């Protein structure tokens, strides 16, 4: 027989009519067939009714919409009633909810009914549905089926256009930058032998410096000889000496005022060593071990003195000695008597460097950079005015 189950709430009444098998008087026997379900909203004339399909659609739509309202996450709900889902709920403004249902009336014609519900009315509808679902004595096959929405339905925090903006800006900036850089020509790479260049530069610098010093020294000496109340013979001799030098060995005595850098350079390459290069060589020898044996020092001093004296005599053959003061130099001598470097100790020694055989006799090794590790003797050489040469060893302590 037919039975009626009612779910009465202040703002919504849900009435289910169906057939009960078994004991008719037993209120706990469940409905087997739903004949009619009716949903009314007291206070309004709105009324929805339909069969089992309508009830199923209503339960499904209301349940999902309630979850969507609770969580704020939009459920994938149909927006307009369809054949499979004739009941839809949609949110409208001012906290209202639009319930739209397509129901067939008694004539079989389908009519669409739209009901605007406020929050409390909607809740009463949800509550009526929930009570129906919880009621095991009406339709036990219908139960509440709510599961959390999967992650992929989660609403992104920002719309797609907003999220794509930074990436778009980045890509376009990269494109613009590459287009601009495309215009810039590729720089050409010229492989250079850097070390060789540096070496030659250093040599050129040393040569230029020595030439300048030579010129300055010569000019000074010339001025001195002009101004000083020297003897008439000296005044007469100097030009002859110059001409002789030019005629004979221009490179050996480059004391001429007109000697330019080129001449100085050739002079340097020809075997003479300027004061600067010799000074560099001496500085290089600073780290070399000193010869400490007194006998060896004496022998070396005598040997060097003899060598310098003979060389001075050779020079004096060509031209008379031009210096009027004793010239004192510090020199470094290797074990076998080679002069490795020299340094002037008084001003006259600097001015008259080219009047001495030291530049010619000094031996400059090819490799000027590497430190010397052979033992050297530091000697003080004195060119006396009478053409003799004295050599005395310098103690390591009073050097520099």
């Amino acid at each position, binding site marked *: 027989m037919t039975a009626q189950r009612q779910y009465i709430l*202040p703002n919504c009444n849900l009435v289910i009519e169906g057939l009960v098998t078994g004991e008719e008087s037993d209120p706990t026997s469940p409905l087997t067939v739903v004949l009619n379900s009716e949903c009314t909203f007291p206070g309004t004339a709105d009324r929805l009714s339909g069969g089992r399909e309508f009830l199923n659609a209503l339960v499904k739509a209301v349940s999902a919409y*309630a*979850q*969507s*309202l*609770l*969580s*704020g*996450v939009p459920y994938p709900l149909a927006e307009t009633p369809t054949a499979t889902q004739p009941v839809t709920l949609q949110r409208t403004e*001012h*906290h209202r909810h639009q319930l739209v249902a397509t129901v067939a009336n008694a004539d079989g014609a389908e009519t669409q009914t739209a009901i605007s519900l*406020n*929050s*409390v009315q909607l*809740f009463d509808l*949800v*509550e009526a549905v*929930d*009570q129906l*679902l*919880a009621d095991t004595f009406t339709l036990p096959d219908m139960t*509440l089926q*709510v*599961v*959390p*929405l*999967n*992650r992929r*339905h*989660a*609403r992104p925090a920002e719309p797609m256009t907003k999220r794509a903006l930074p990436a778009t800006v980045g890509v376009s900036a990269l494109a613009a930058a590459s287009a601009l850089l495309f215009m810039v020509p590729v720089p050409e790479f010229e492989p250079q032998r850097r070390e060789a260049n540096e070496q030659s530069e250093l040599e050129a610098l040393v040569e230029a410096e020595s030439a300048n010093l030579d010129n300055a020294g010569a000019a000074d000496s010339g001025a001195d000889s002009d101004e000083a109340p020297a003897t008439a013979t000296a005044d007469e001799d100097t030009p002859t000496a110059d001409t002789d030098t030019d005629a004979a060995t221009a490179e050996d005595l480059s004391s001429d005022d007109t000697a330019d850098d080129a001449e100085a350079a050739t002079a340097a390459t020809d075997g003479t060593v300027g004061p600067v290069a010799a000074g560099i060589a001496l500085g290089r020898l600073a780290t070399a071990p000193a010869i400490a044996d007194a006998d060896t020092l004496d022998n070396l001093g005598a040997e060097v003195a003899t060598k310098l004296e003979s060389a001075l005599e050779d020079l004096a053959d060509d031209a008379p000695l031009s210096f009027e003061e004793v010239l004192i130099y510090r020199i470094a001598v290797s074990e076998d008597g080679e002069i490795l470097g020299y340094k002037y100790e008084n001003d006259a020694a600097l001015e008259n460097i080219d009047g001495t055989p030291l530049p010619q006799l000094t031996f400059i090794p090819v490799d000027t950079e590497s430190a010397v590790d052979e033992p050297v003797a530091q000697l003080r050489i004195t060119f006396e005015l009478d053409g003799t040469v004295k050599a005395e060893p310098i103690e390591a302590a009073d050097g520099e």
Partner: protein
Amino acid sequence: MQLDSPPAASSPSLLETLANPNLPSQDCPRRIRIDLDLLILAIESLDVAGSEALLKVTEQLGLQAVIPGRVQLWLIRSTNPMRRQSQRDPLSVDQAKALTLVICFLAKRLTVLIRQLLLGYQQLQDQNLSPDHHFRLADYLSRFRSLFRARMNPQRAGVIAYSTDEKLNELALLLLTRLLFCTGTQGPQRLWNSLFDGEVV
């Protein structure tokens, strides 16, 4: 109304009525921590003795094992990242379940008030009046605003979004609607599942 009377069952069995969500991690996501704390804040705004009632209900429901006392409750609520004294401690699923049950229980007690406020708000809306014209509603909104501002860290981006009174009123009304849905027969189930919408894998 089957759940009207508090079940006398022990806490684990009560918690088992709520299904464990299939979360990617062991702890509750950020949104759940925020939502639960805000719902409790709304209850406190409705009921002056809300936080006391919360502890009482915890005892009534036999959930002391999960929420032993006031300090633990405060610690759990402080997992809300919007709070000034936000804790970095995780919120366990059991704690979230306990809070959900307590919220639904308290909401059910406040059903009449919640319905009054929402109906009143609807009437004010229909007449284009501001919520200030409803004394009880204005009281709720102002209390919610002051509680929110006192407890939430205004430096956080999530709190900056609610910088104006209008925004806070909207949030308070949204929470009121959610509390209304918590009062239903299937309130705990609906609230619990809605918390994890868009979070499960």
